[in-house]
């Protein structure tokens, strides 16, 4: 929820106002929001770290994790960061066609990542790990689910942005809007970098 809200760009007061730092209001707000999100994901990651080994019922993490598959997932998300940054630089060159292209590619990679997560959750569930099975289950699904929601929101924003650019309905500085969504997208990626190492690669 807060994601959407903070994304919104109120340019009004740029009019007739100088900006004390010379920076854009929107970017300042976005970075603040990301700084704040660090504590959100930090809390969920800490909860997982505390509870990862606490299994009364159901499987342990090491019994169900599919590292090869998750590695590919991580790789896909990482590559989507590349395509995102290409979209940003195209937008800064005012190249609408390429901006849109890379936005769509990023969104597609993000959507397959979500598909991968759907697959992963389904297999875990089949093997006996539900949300309510154990502390490990609850904290694992809460953490990766929160991340998944962030990615999904990102994909929806990317696709909508593409549509809005195509229709020429964008309010405000186009390159900056792309950059803001890019910042969000990269943040989601770095959260996954941490999750991949702390959750998947380091055994509990």
């Amino acid at each position, binding site marked *: 929820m807060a994601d959407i809200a903070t994304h919104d760009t109120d340019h009004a007061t740029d009019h007739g106002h100088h900006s004390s730092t010379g920076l854009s209001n929107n970017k300042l707000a976005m970075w603040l929001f990301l700084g704040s999100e660090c504590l959100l994901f930090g809390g969920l990651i800490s909860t997982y770290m505390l509870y990862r080994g606490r299994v009364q019922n159901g499987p342990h993490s*090491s019994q169900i994790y599919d590292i090869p598959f998750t590695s590919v997932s991580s790789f896909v998300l990482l590559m989507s960061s590349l395509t995102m940054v290409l979209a940003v630089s195209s937008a800064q060159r005012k190249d609408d066609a390429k901006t849109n*292209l890379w936005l769509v590619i990023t*969104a597609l990679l993000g*959507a397959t990542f979500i598909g991968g997560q759907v697959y992963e959750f389904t297999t875990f569930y089949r*093997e*006996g790990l539900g949300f309510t099975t154990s502390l490990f289950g609850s904290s694992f699904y809460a953490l990766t689910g929160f991340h998944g929601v962030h990615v999904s929101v990102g994909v929806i924003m990317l696709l909508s942005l593409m549509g809005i650019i195509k229709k020429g309905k964008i309010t405000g500085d186009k390159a900056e809007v792309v950059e803001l969504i890019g910042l969000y997208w990269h943040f989601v990626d770095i959260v996954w970098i941490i999750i991949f190492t702390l959750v998947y690669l380091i055994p509990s």
Partner: protein
Amino acid sequence: MITPGSKYFFGLTGLSLISAILYMVLVNPSDLGAVALFGLAASGALIGAMALFTRDGDVYTDEEAVAVNAAAGSPSFWPIVFALGAALVLTGLATVPVVFVLGIAVLIAGGVEWTIQNWADGASSDREFNEFARTRAISAIEYPGLAAVGLGVIAFFFSRVVLAVSKEAGPIIFIVVAAVILVVGVLIATKPFMKGAVTVVVAVLAVAVLATAGTFAALSGERHELTVAAEADHYDASHRECGAEASDHYDHLANNTVSLRSAVTATIFVKDGKVYAEAIGMTKKVDTITIPRSNATSVMFRNLDEEQHRLVVNLGSAKVATTGVVEKVGTCTQLTGKNQEQVMTLKIPKPATATEPYSFTVPGATGEIKLVVP
């Protein structure tokens, strides 16, 4: 701004709300009557909002002479979508709920689009303006709606495909799909011939392939191992085998460290084939651990032996309700290797009786620790 038509409906809403609250206070808060009155209020509010939104279906224009629907009649496929929704709802009623829910969604989407289209067509005599009005009203939900549908379709079909193929093939398919997306992106970005019609063809082709593969996969179901795993429920407590040997499922990739140290009442060690225990607050080694009845209490097992061991707790025996057979009651940790540890959380509802005292043992090691539940 409040139109006359909507006023009536909002009035109805207010009245029914008041009567609902009165009804709840005076008659019965959980009665069906209250639900009905609230429902009336809600529907009043909904229709009122619709009336407000469509200006009671009126057109306002400076040019009074222009016919109200001068610009009407733009062709629309929303009625078809609406009909499709209705068909899906009916199918869903007969078959599976998923289709029913899907049908409702399509029905609402088609209905809303149709309404807005009609409303916009009547906004003025200028078609360009009417299109402007339509977008202003609907685009805020069209963009995210379409994007969400796109995300859902890709995620659903892609995950069906990976679920259907073998575990080893999954990552390969995933990486191939990602690579194709990337390569196509790079091609379109760099090669001039990949423009216009070609991109459309590529996109259509990609969607077709994904949809076909996904549908096939969804119909063929998940791969065999998953079905087996779901049925066998490997990790169910009843599969625990507490012997000295490793069991098939329970000890598969056993968990070897835990982070529960702040909460254990006692730690049971096995070293050189012997079992001993330490309890929090006790300065000496203990041979009895006392834990309160019905209280979730954690006991740590730490293996200092060369061989793998597991901790077993013996809680007497009891008659199994379903079969009537008397069975040993107890549970165990997984096999743990040297210098590794596991925690066992126990909640024992019955006190130990003299005939069958409770105890901790380690198969393959000597000695036992008595467990007292007062």
